[in-house]
């Protein structure tokens, strides 16, 4: 009965209630889109970091992460490979040689990170092989691929020659000529300006490393295995190596994502406050219009706490109705977008800088969903407390004088 009473009461002034319901509907559906897009963007940023270069786990000689020089090479990569082959959760791994260097064209030069990779194996680790926009992927001797951005800066095209200059293992300057065979474009423009790829043998030769490598990059069957596999490897290969997850290597991403998650709260706060004011407003109006009725209810013998609960329930129902409609509308918009993605072309520059790519696929997490479900009904409840207090403040005699 109290439900029936509350439900009918909220529709007494349809227009007034609808205004608040609509504001909740809009808030919930907009929040759903903002939140899922942000989540999608963060996830893509993280995935891109993993897929572009870092991979799930990296293995180096101990000390490499603090001092990224060639002398920290891995002396016995066969032993490590043996260990990796025995761990089931590892899907792919690849060996790499990495060095800072200078790239020179006839027109310009630039500081770069030279990555020597095993072309076939690396295909399974990163998306570089799938990001070629001109020419082809590495494979042949002395072929190099660059980011398109870098190629523009150096003013080189496919087929042009460039010179890589490094300081080799012994500290001597070493250089070699490479032919540009492919240009890539990744989701991160900053990355594209810096990373260049050559076959691992070419890199070993250039750097005087013999057959030594600098790092292993691993992709696991499931991200959830990362910490356990990390420990497993570390135990197996011993203390003279460091085994790091993407999170150890690039903690800034995680910190950035956590900050971003906190920023999303601001949206909830803004919409929540707006809706909250609306609720306080209409519930106060509705209470003041019904003062006499509360007097009658009290004269009949209804207790104050029941009347209090009635007002809260009315407001809560408004919150629930708005939330349900808002969720339906939000989901109807979200579902197709989560398949096609949202092309944020106008922000392409900054998105490329963040490294998320310009097409964002919104992601709805359980956390977001529950936040969306509970926020507005909760705010409606809170917003009704003051009006509800008002409703029971009147003494019955005073209330009955109201018409």
């Amino acid at each position, binding site marked *: *009965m109290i439900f*029936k*009473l509350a439900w*009918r*009461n909220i529709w*007494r002034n349809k227009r007034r209630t609808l205004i608040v319901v609509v504001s909740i509907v809009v808030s919930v559906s907009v929040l759903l889109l903002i939140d899922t897009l942000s989540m999608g963007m963060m996830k893509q940023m993280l995935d891109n970091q993993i897929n572009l270069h870092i991979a799930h786990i990296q293995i180096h000689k101990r000390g490499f992460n603090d001092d990224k020089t060639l002398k920290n090479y891995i002396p016995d990569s066969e032993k490590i490979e043996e260990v990796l082959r025995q761990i089931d959760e590892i899907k792919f791994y690849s060996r790499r040689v990495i060095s800072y260097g200078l790239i020179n064209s006839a027109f310009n030069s630039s500081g770069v990170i030279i990555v020597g990779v095993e072309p076939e194996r690396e295909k399974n680790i990163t998306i570089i092989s799938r990001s070629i926009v001109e020419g082809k992927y590495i494979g042949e001797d002395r072929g190099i691929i660059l980011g398109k951005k870098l190629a523009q800066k150096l003013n080189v095209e496919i087929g042009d020659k460039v010179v890589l200059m490094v300081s080799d293992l012994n500290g001597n300057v070493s250089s070699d000529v490479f032919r540009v065979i492919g240009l890539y474009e990744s989701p991160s423009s900053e990355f594209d300006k810096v990373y260049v790829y050559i076959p691992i043998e070419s890199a070993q030769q250039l750097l005087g490393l013999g057959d030594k490598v600098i790092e292993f990059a691993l992709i696991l069957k499931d991200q959830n295995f990362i910490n356990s596999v990390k420990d497993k490897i570390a135990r197996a290969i011993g203390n003279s190596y460091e085994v790091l997850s993407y999170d150890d290597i690039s903690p800034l991403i995680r910190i950035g994502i956590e900050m971003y998650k906190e920023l999303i709260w601001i949206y909830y706060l803004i919409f929540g406050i707006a809706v909250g004011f609306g609720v306080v407003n209409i519930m106060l109006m509705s209470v003041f219009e019904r003062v*006499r*009725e509360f007097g*009658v*209810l*009290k*004269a*009949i*013998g*209804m*207790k*104050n*706490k*029941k009347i209090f609960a009635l007002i809260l329930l009315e407001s809560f129902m408004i919150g629930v109705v708005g939330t349900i409609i808002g969720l339906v509308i939000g989901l109807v918009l979200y579902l197709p977008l989560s398949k096609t993605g949202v092309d944020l072309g106008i922000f392409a520059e900054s998105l490329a800088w963040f490294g998320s790519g310009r097409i964002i696929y919104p992601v709805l997490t359980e956390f977001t969903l529950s936040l969306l479900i509970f926020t507005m009904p909760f705010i409606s409840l809170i917003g009704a407390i003051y009006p509800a207090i008002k409703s029971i403040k009147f*003494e*019955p*005699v005073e209330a*009955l004088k109201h*018409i």
Partner: protein
Amino acid sequence: MTLIKTENLTKIYSDGKVQVEALKSVNLEIEAGEFVVVAGPSGSGKTTLLNLIGGLDKPTDGKVYLEGVDISLLKRDEMADFRLRKIGFIFQAYNLIPVLTAFENVELPLILLGISESERRKRVMEVLNLLEIGELADKKPNEMSGGQQQRVAVARAIVTNPSIVLADEPTAHLDSKTGAMLIDLMQEMNRKRGITFVICSHDPQVIQKAGRLIKLRDGTIEDDKKFW
């Protein structure tokens, strides 16, 4: 049995400077089963007396006993409960909850009492039929005439089988024919169910039906006559 007893009941309204002594040390005893009309000119204190008896307001001085209970000792929720079980109210107008049908309005106090749905249905229909307004059951207050609304209000007041029904000018907004029918109805309920009625009114039709007529003037009892 003495159902209602007031002892030196006094009510002084003061809003800052002006003080109005609405009731001056009223002593009154009403037996169970009486049909009392409280008459008197406007401002004589009728409503004040009724509100104090019903526990809707607190006296400045003096006491009200209902069935021997000093109601000043009851806490707010206990008083609400007491009203729910023992007292029915009928006001001048706007007695009903506008979003509820006649049936639901009458049902409301039974719900507050926690009575089961089937029992509620039985008792509400019984009262509505008794008052010959069974066909109004599904009507909302704004679909009923003033007289019909007041009948529903009577039904709601008596559905819990209270000891007392307090009615404040129940016929004030009705034409004389409807008013006469309503007062007849109340008298019938008084006779059939033994419910004590205390009705404030200056409507001659009502005064004429009184079993006991109490005349108030300036907050004191000027006259108290018992006819039956």
